């Protein structure tokens, strides 16, 4: 009791007098950069509008319309497929690399440096580097990455693996190095083989890292924008029942597209953004609860 009172007098009250200096400027920027746009955007998803001033409330009209929007539904399934496939490839390769790099081989630090490097290059630049490389290969077969959906899909998978394997590898390496030595030694004394050690000790101990990495690659996959824009920008396009489907367009790109190509009503774009937010937030919250539960068990 006495201590908290002292603490309050010494630390808390004096700081509180400087709220205008410590907290308010950042909070004001937070309101401009996040809070106000977020709530206004949420409200606008129920409106018909072109600019924010002429918004008229229309209820759930926008939400109804986007579930009949074939381009949006296509983008949704395409994104889900992409996120799942990229998740598997990135994590399998990242774990294998991390596993071998922690075996005490020569040059491990140098290799780690190389594998992480693509992570620092921005998405737009990455997209153009790889579109040049893919087109350089595909021109021998008289085609290009923007001409066929499957090239666009696997091209983007290769690109995203190149970029993100290094990142996940860093997390896996940290996890591998945190496994207690004595556990390994005990297993060795008991005569466990390499495979037994990997399956019975390494992998169970790595569960927290696996959770973090799977969810990270999942959210990254869903939020992907720059790379998608730079590599194919949705090409090739096909006609389906009067609407144009951009076959390699992912959700984020679809949303931006419907905002800035619509000259009459941006409401559906904003409604898509809200659905997108709920999706991404859902995945992130699932991760949080999942990691928490794991932590309790340990």
């Amino acid at each position, binding site marked *: 009791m006495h201590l908290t009172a002292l603490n309050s007098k010494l630390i808390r009250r004096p700081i509180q007098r400087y709220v205008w200096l410590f907290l308010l400027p950042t909070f004001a*920027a937070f309101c401009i950069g996040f809070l106000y746009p977020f709530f206004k955007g949420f409200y606008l998803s129920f409106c018909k509008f072109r600019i924010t001033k002429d918004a008229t409330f229309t209820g759930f009209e926008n939400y109804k319309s986007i579930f009949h929007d074939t381009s949006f539904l296509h983008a949704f399934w395409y994104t889900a497929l992409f996120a799942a496939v990229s998740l598997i490839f990135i994590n399998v390769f990242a774990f294998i690399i991390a596993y071998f790099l922690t075996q005490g081989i020569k040059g491990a630090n140098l290799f780690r440096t190389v594998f992480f490097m693509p992570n620092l290059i921005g998405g737009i630049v990455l997209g153009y580097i790889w579109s040049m490389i893919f087109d350089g290969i595909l021109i021998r077969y008289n085609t290009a990455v923007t001409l066929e959906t499957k090239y666009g899909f696997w091209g983007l998978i290769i690109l995203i693996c190149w970029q993100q394997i290094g990142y996940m590898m860093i997390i896996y390496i940290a996890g591998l190095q945190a496994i207690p030595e004595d556990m390994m030694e005990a297993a060795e004394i008991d005569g466990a083989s390499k495979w037994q050690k990997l399956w019975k000790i390494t992998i169970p101990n790595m569960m927290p890292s696996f959770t973090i990495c799977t969810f990270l690659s999942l959210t990254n996959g869903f939020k992907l924008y720059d790379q998608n824009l730079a590599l194919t920008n949705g090409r090739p396009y096909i006609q389906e029942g009067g609407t144009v489907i951009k076959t390699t367009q992912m959700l984020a790109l679809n949303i931006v597209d419907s905002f800035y190509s619509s000259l009459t009503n941006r409401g559906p774009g904003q409604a898509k953004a809200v659905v997108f937010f709920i999706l991404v937030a859902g995945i992130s919250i699932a991760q949080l609860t999942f990691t928490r539960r794991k932590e309790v068990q340990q």
Partner: protein
Amino acid sequence: MKREVQRKRMLSVAFALISIFYLFPVFVVLMNSFKSNGSINTETFAFPNESSFMGLQNYIKGMTFGNYPFFKSVFFSFFITVVSSALILLCCSMAAWYIARVGDKACNTVYYLCVFSMVVPFQMVMFTLSRTADKLALDTPWTIPVVYLGFGAGLAIFMFVGFVKSIPLEIEEAAAIDGCGPIRTFFMVVLPMLKPTLISVGVLEIMWVWNDYLLPYLVLDRNQYMTIPIHIQYLKGSYGTVDMGATMALILLSIVPVIIFYLICQKHIIKGVAAGAVKG
């Protein structure tokens, strides 16, 4: 034992080969930045030869290519990245200290709003944010750091609060008893202790702002100001015939500062990324 040594040597060789393969894309860009347009398109992976070698011409052309001087984009990218990151570090560490030490209801509300903002994708706020930034005259490189501070505050405050809570209160109490006011306590006592977190958060913010495309694209007045990603997208995206050589030269020039930054701060970058991933 001998087999073990041999196995490790084999692994080293294998990884060396994979590493070379991994660096190959950057190498192709370097090579192609010295080649003529036709040769880039048809013989992408060939070394420059006598007929396709262009010397520095692509670089010279790239400087003014697209009716916008490249050095201006580079300058704006540098300026926005440095000022935004510095602003985020200073303001968010101050706010986080306030939140952690005062800890009343208002503080907790702000803290949870920050955590919440971390799961909101940019597309959710982009339209209203760009309108708001427009109205408040935040659409220039000189003022856009405020937008970055607002949108990036969540992660930074979250990471700082976590660290501040692990600092023992006794140090600040001692400072207070010796007659140190909150401002001096923060700058002379707390901030130096925050150094590892400052570096981690700084690295994350620099990587984010430097590579960011959509936010500056929507917020900045595009006719006057470009950053490097916007410039490159503009060259490739909106031109009928693309000058590949010049584009490759500019891509290479935009990667070079990143690689230099990486080689200098490698240790901090990798540590920062690991810390950010575990927490975010």
